[in-house]
């Protein structure tokens, strides 16, 4: 190739050494030896002055061509060796990608609180504010203001824990209605979540403490048709797009008319299954139009405003949603139970 034997010699040996280099560091040694500051080719180029003037341009040109070629070859070899070395490094570190990952610590919201928040968020979307009230309540707020007369059998509907003659553990979230309406004038649109207490036998379907969510809407033009529409919408959000509600007449002292509300069974779509006890419907809440006496008790005029209210058991909804067969599980707090509710829930903002 090169006419000059010295250049040719440098080239030949360099190519052989590059080919023979087994590591990037060995290759670097070759590069330094040939192209480094005091490398063979560098020295030759520097010593061109000693070359006879007639040969000088040719030798100089040849040396520069060789330098260029060697740099290319070095770079290619460098890339190849680097890739190989990386491959070997990885190969030396054995992996078992089926090992479980290091999952960051994660706890679970209690299923009751989770469902409660989900219900709240549905009503928030409809423009309802959240109101809260005390769990130890006066007889007045829990009963009298809600149109439960003294010594009336309606009081037997709610077996009551007493703290004193006129103080009780609230048996429902309805007293929050009274507090909220007393605190502000109409219009009122609130949901009231919280613990309630009934002196009940404890078994798979009864608990002395459970959670309710109260809903209340009072305004100039609120009708039972609005109640139905709102609960239909709630049922669709909570139980799926096919869901809707059915009203059955009932009795609550603080609503008139009153209705028990069933949702179309979301397991079978109304055909009948073990969840709905073959009826196609599942009872989920009590509701009605706010009784005129209740409106009068908080200083509202029943000729001016009307309203509806409902009270829903959160455990009931959670039991249906998660297919839980014993209400006591909620209050045992077995970590294996709680852990089942650790997955991210769509409902939380």
């Amino acid at each position, binding site marked *: 190739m090169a006419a000059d034997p010295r250049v040719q010699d440098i080239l030949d040996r360099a190519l052989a050494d590059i080919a023979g280099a087994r590591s990037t560091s060995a290759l670097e040694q070759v590069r330094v030896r040939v192209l480094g500051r005091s490398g063979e080719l560098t020295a030759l180029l520097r010593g061109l002055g000693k070359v006879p003037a007639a040969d000088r341009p040719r030798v100089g040109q040849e040396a520069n061509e060789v330098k260029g070629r060697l740099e290319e070859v070095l770079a290619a070899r460098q890339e190849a060796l680097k890739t190989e070395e990386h491959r070997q490094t990885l190969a030396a570190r054995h992996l078992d990608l089926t*090992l*479980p990952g*290091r999952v*960051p*610590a994660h*706890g*679970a*919201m*209690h299923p009751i*609180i989770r469902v409660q928040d989900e219900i709240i968020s549905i009503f928030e979307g409809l*423009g309802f*504010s*959240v109101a*809260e009230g*005390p769990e*130890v309540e*006066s007889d007045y707020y829990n009963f009298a203001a809600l149109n439960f*007369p003294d*010594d*009336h*059998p309606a009081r037997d*509907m709610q077996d009551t*824990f*007493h*703290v004193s003659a006129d*103080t009780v553990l609230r048996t429902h979230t309805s007293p929050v209605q009274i507090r909220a309406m007393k605190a502000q004038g109409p219009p009122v649109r609130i949901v009231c*979540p919280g*613990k309630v207490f009934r002196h009940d036998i*404890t078994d798979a379907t009864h608990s*002395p*403490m459970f959670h309710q969510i109260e809903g209340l*809407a009072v305004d*100039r033009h*609120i*009708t*039972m*048709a*609005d109640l139905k*529409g*709102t609960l*239909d*919408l709630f049922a669709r959000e909570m139980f799926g797009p096919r869901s809707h509600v*059915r*009203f*059955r*007449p009932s*009795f609550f002292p603080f609503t*008139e*008319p009153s*209705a028990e509300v069933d949702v179309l069974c979301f397991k079978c779509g109304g055909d009948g299954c073990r969840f709905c006890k073959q009826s196609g419907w599942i009872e989920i809440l009590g509701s009605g*139009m706010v009784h*005129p006496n209740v409106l009068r008790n908080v200083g509202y005029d029943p000729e001016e405003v*009307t309203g509806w209210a409902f009270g829903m058991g959160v455990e009931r909804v959670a039991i249906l949603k998660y297919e839980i067969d014993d209400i006591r599980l*909620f*209050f045992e*707090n*077995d*970590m*294996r139970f*709680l852990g089942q509710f650790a997955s991210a829930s769509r409902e939380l903002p």
Partner: protein
Amino acid sequence: MKISYRWLREFAETELPPETIADRLVNAGIEVASVQPLVEGLSGVVIAEIEAIEQDLGVTPAGHHNRLCRVALPDKSFSVVCGAPNAARGLRTAFAPPGATLPGGRAIKAAKIRGTQSEGMLCSEQELGIGEDGSGILELPADAPLGAPLSRYLGLDDTILEIEITPNRPDALSVVGVAREVAALTGAPFRFPQIAVKEGEIDAARIAEVEILDPDLSPRYAARVITGLTVKPSPPWLAQRLRSVGLRPINNLVDVTNYVLWEMGQPLHAFDYDTVAQHKIVVRRAQPGERIMTLDGQDRALTPGMLLICDPERPIGIAGVMGGASTEVTAKTTTVLLESAFFNPGSIRSTSRTLGLHTDAAYRFERGADIEGLREALDRAAQLMADLGGGTVAKGAIDVYPGPKPRPRITLRRSRIERVIGVCPPHEDVVRILQALGFAVDDSGLALQVVVPSFRRDIVQEDDLVEEVIRVWGYDKIPSALAGGGVLQPVIHPPALVLARAVTRALTSAGLSQAVTYAFVDPARLKVMGWDAPEALITLQNPISAERSVLQPSLAPGVLEVVALNGTRQIPDVRVFEIGQTFAPHREEDGDRPAHEELWLAVAMTGQRAPRAWHATRDRIDIYDVKGAAELAVYAAGVGDAETTLYAAGEGPRYLEQGRAAALSVGGRPVGWFGEVALGVRETFDLPAPVFLAELSLSALLDLPRRETRYQPLPRFPAVQRDLAIVVAAEVTAGQIEAAIRSMKLPLLSRLTLFDVYEGGQVGAGKRSLAWSLTYQAPDRTLTDREVNELHARIVAEISRRFGAEIRGV
């Protein structure tokens, strides 16, 4: 309440099947729990007579005295083994010949019983599935038609509807009341029972007297006298009808009162006339010290104010609740004084509750009887008694009703129905529905004028009528709408809910799970935990158990119970928190809230820090884990950082170990504490391993000013890091040293991070090695080595001087 379909159809002329009637009732607000045939699986049983006892077969090992009976049908006779004590020649009874079946699918075949061939079986009430009595075979009257199917004779081809009536509808607690509903719902004609009394010569008012001393509690009291009666068993149709609705037949007189109660809803009481002193009834409140022996044989102390039925000498009954034993109808009774009255519902309920005596009568009176209908019930029962007991009804009824009240009149506007419901049924439907339910309606004006019948005490205002109309018209006809218009209002969240959600999110993200525990706890455990003043606690008057009788003054017992429960289930690693109310007696600031309630967070942790895994450490949770959880919660509250203050001896919750607990505060305001659970408490809760607890008052955090997040410019010049490693006496706290450094107020010291704590080994007993990384930084320039060296040396000198620290590295 059980309602017989046959009985119902005596008053509502309908051909609709029982299931359809049940559906209509449910859709009108009367729950029907079940619809079931009266007797299931009974076939082939006929009426037969025991012609002769052919042979005594002796007593079986089970104690039955078996006899071989010859049982006759009109055309044939059978030899049947029978162990019933009442099997006697001439008795007509229920006979299941071979081929008959009894309830439960029991097929009767000819078989050998203890070596004797028996061609069928004589049956008891119990075996027939028509009653409770299994002591002997069914006894039928001598005129019961031989060979006739028993089922037809007794009316057993019936269906029973088990209905549930809400407390506002006492009028529906009777066959007639349900029939009226059914008629209104189906359009069937409603027939009120035809009542005509055949009266005798003697004037009732001349032989008996009634005086009401307390008309506020007994506004009406009516009575009749029936003479010349014979007490005997009720005829089969009556006995069977009572059995079919779950009542036990007793004798003809008592059975009549129960029958009329069931049919018309009016409780009645029969006194043995001859045992009532001066044949005079006095209705009055109890006086102090009075007692009565009731029908059930209990001697009961009466509270002043309870309404009594008395004669001039003594109490003879607790009004509306239970009669007295001294005037009870017995086998010897020939004359009955029959009571039909109205008693004040609240008074009856209060008496019944005070005595713990819940009877069918009290159940109806406390819901409200029909003050006008009681006369019809009285007449019906008196005539039935006379018919069935061979007696005579004395002329006239004694009826004390000093202040009859007019029936209420209510105006019903169709516009109101529309206003409340969103829709209004056609005018004719509104009128028809109300009339069918027993209301008198005048529809000549713009609004309806409605007169409420005396049996509908629940109807007092216009909206009550709105409900009546709509529930019969059909809730399914109410459209589904959404309230439109109105003024948009912002959605408001209570700060407590916002904070609880933020803390919940932070802690669950950090690997803790949320618990919800009962709000009532065990006072014995609270005592061990240091609550020894009962007046600081709220105790339930009627707890479900002593262990759940006090409202939680702290969430600590609840979360410790969670740890304990998991421990018993072989789950030793628990990282749990709860957010809930704590309860203390009312304070001034609580206003009209009866108790002092605060929102708290409790964290309990025990066991391994991380779930066991191939990559996890096996470190055990320690006190710094709960401290960190509490700090995270405070951080999530956005009110600044938590500060730790060690408790002096005797300070802090008694359920935490002395010296292993500290107070938490924010900006100098106490907000909670953390520590290790004391050994005695662990033993009480059965917690073998150390448990760490933190509690924070979220209410206190809510009172603190929120610190808004503000962006800090990122440093533009490089930082310089220097370490400070010292050995100090073990009592010197890291907090003290950090406070000392901070108190030097060095603006260029931007960060102080404790990165190593070491005890033991070369450090020496009673000493501790601590190491910090200090970051120096200026916002406006690169610091020089000289500057940093000088600052660091000042810190080293200060720490060395103040704490006698040995400097191990700088």
